[in-house]
């Protein structure tokens, strides 16, 4: 069985499952959970651009997520239309990403981490203290959801489909980015920055653009978030949120497309669904992370692939016959 065939089959099945989800998942509550998984997955995918592909670990990504959400929320509360709010939010997150990038790309590794952490905290402090603008910890209420092409998105099902479309667009665009020459150069700056410079690539500029793209997609997730909850408050911009999305990326598996999605699913399901059945869900979530790291340090998705390949190989070796032994092993 060729890997590509398996992958295509899995994607097709997943696609059908996602498209028909409201019909088989049961309750409206679970449709809402699915919407949450989708936009958290977008957020995690955006962070993965930096963490997985550019090799830059950021602990301030919630700042970008939040600034898009707040801009959209404040404009909507001020009476502006949805299109204005969305475009302004994207513009705001782009501008903020520029500032973040210029400041944080002065350093890599732990320096980058700390600068992004500081920037995220500063944004949080502003969201909290500048109450005349942001309403402080009382937050901003968003009264209505958009109605593209006349379809109002208030019901869980309609919101889910809108989120699904945005999610698929983001996944496709990130996939295109990853497979493009620019995506390759980003990975190059992660693995061999000095060699890249020697080859004539402008490493700083590559990282800068990657940061902007990452910020833009994080902004998309932020807009979905504020429309979903119809409320935003400074907690969204806090360090915990940045840490949570980083955990989603690492646990799912960096530098893969499916990894952050899986990570987002784990955290959202544990926090919202499992917490209804297990009181100490926080403990269980911690145990899951430790287990993932112990058995699959590269992340849940790459680890599962590896373990299933091992399992398949063991199975095949044990039952190999003359026919099977003639089949060449496909390159990994």
């Amino acid at each position, binding site marked *: 069985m060729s890997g590509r065939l398996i992958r295509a089959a899995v994607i097709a099945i997943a696609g059908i499952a996602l498209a028909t989800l409201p019909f088989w998942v049961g309750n409206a509550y679970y449709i809402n959970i699915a919407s949450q998984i989708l936009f958290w997955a977008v957020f995690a995918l955006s962070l993965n651009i930096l*963490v997985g592909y550019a090799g830059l*670990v950021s602990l301030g990504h919630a700042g970008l997520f939040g600034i898009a959400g707040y801009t959209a929320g404040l404009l909507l509360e001020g009476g502006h239309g949805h299109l204005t709010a969305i475009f302004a939010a994207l513009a705001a997150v782009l501008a903020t990403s520029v500032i973040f990038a210029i*400041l944080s790309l*002065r*350093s890599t*590794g*732990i*320096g980058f*981490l*700390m*600068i992004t*952490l*500081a*920037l995220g*905290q*500063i944004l*949080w*402090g*502003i969201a*909290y*203290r500048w109450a005349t603008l942001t309403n402080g910890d009382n937050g901003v209420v968003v009264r209505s959801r958009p109605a593209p092409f006349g379809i109002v998105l208030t019901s869980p099902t309609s919101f889910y489909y809108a989120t699904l479309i945005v999610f698929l667009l983001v996944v496709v665009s990130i996939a295109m980015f990853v497979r493009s020459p620019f995506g390759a150069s980003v990975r190059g700056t992660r693995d061999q920055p000095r060699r890249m410079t020697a080859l004539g690539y402008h490493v700083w500029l590559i990282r800068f653009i990657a940061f902007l793209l990452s910020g833009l997609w994080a902004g998309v997730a932020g807009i979905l978030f504020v429309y979903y909850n119809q409320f935003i408050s400074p907690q969204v911009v806090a*360090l*915990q949120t940045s*840490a949570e999305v*980083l*955990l989603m990326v*690492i*646990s799912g598996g*960096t530098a893969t497309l499916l990894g952050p999605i899986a990570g987002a699913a784990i955290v959202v399901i544990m926090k919202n669904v499992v917490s209804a059945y297990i009181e*100490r869900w*926080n*403990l269980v*979530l*911690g*145990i*899951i*992370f*430790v287990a*993932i*790291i*112990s058995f699959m*340090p*590269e992340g849940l998705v790459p680890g599962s692939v590896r373990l299933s390949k091992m399992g398949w190989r063991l199975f095949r070796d044990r039952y190999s016959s003359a026919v099977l032994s003639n089949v060449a092993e496909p390159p990994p």
Partner: protein
Amino acid sequence: MNLWLTLAVNSVALGGLLFLLSAGFSLIFGLMRIPNLMHGSFFMLGAYFGVTFLAKGTNFWVAALASGAAMAIIGGLVERFLLRRLAGQELPQVLLTLGLSFIVSDICLMIWTGDPIQPSTPSSLQGAVQAFGIYFPIYRLVIVAVAVAVAVALWLMIDWTRLGAMIRAGVDDGPIARVIGIKVSQLFTLIFCLGAALAAFAGVMGSPILSVYPGLDIDMLPLALLVVILGGTGSLLGAFVGSFVIGFLYNFGQAMFPDLAYVILFLPMLLVLVLRPQGLFGRVVS
């Protein structure tokens, strides 16, 4: 009371406490390059152990040392069985330590419940110094003395003992150190134990001031990060100086610029990082 003098004295006092908190983190991060995001958990768990020992009537210093010893064991187990196989892989280390911190914080909530606990200051150290128009608790000054003692002890160990030399060799060039017979892995376990023990000791020492409550780990970890980053990773002197700098920034900043209370610690750190990414005393790491 004399505001500025009180703030100045408290800056030193807070600096002392911050050094105790971040010394362990500086060791682990500076020498082993592990971003130990469960440092706050060691601090909090150590403080909880401390208050439990104190409730049973042990002497304060004994409780602090016993808590440190207990945390050394726990830290050793974590390093030996979980962290060691992740050597050099920063992201998995982040996930592991964060995951463990979730586990620790939930277990603390289960055992000690959500109510805050604040042990009394040890009776021999109660009371205050009243001089030059200020009234300042003796215990906070004692913490400074303890911090200095710990700093001197660590410096002596690392720079003047054979063990310290072996540790520095293992850090500078692990493979070569192994070639000449230094058991680098065991040394690293030892450092991690020491770092965890220091955090726990600091937790107990700080508990009469900070109290112990769920969320203490999340409140303290950014402070440790700040001190070590500002002072410079890999430098104990940096952690020492950084603690007092943060102490001064905190006290005078909160009093003089209350509107900037949230950013008063992060802005200077940002400035240092942007202008001098290796921190005040750090070495440039290629």
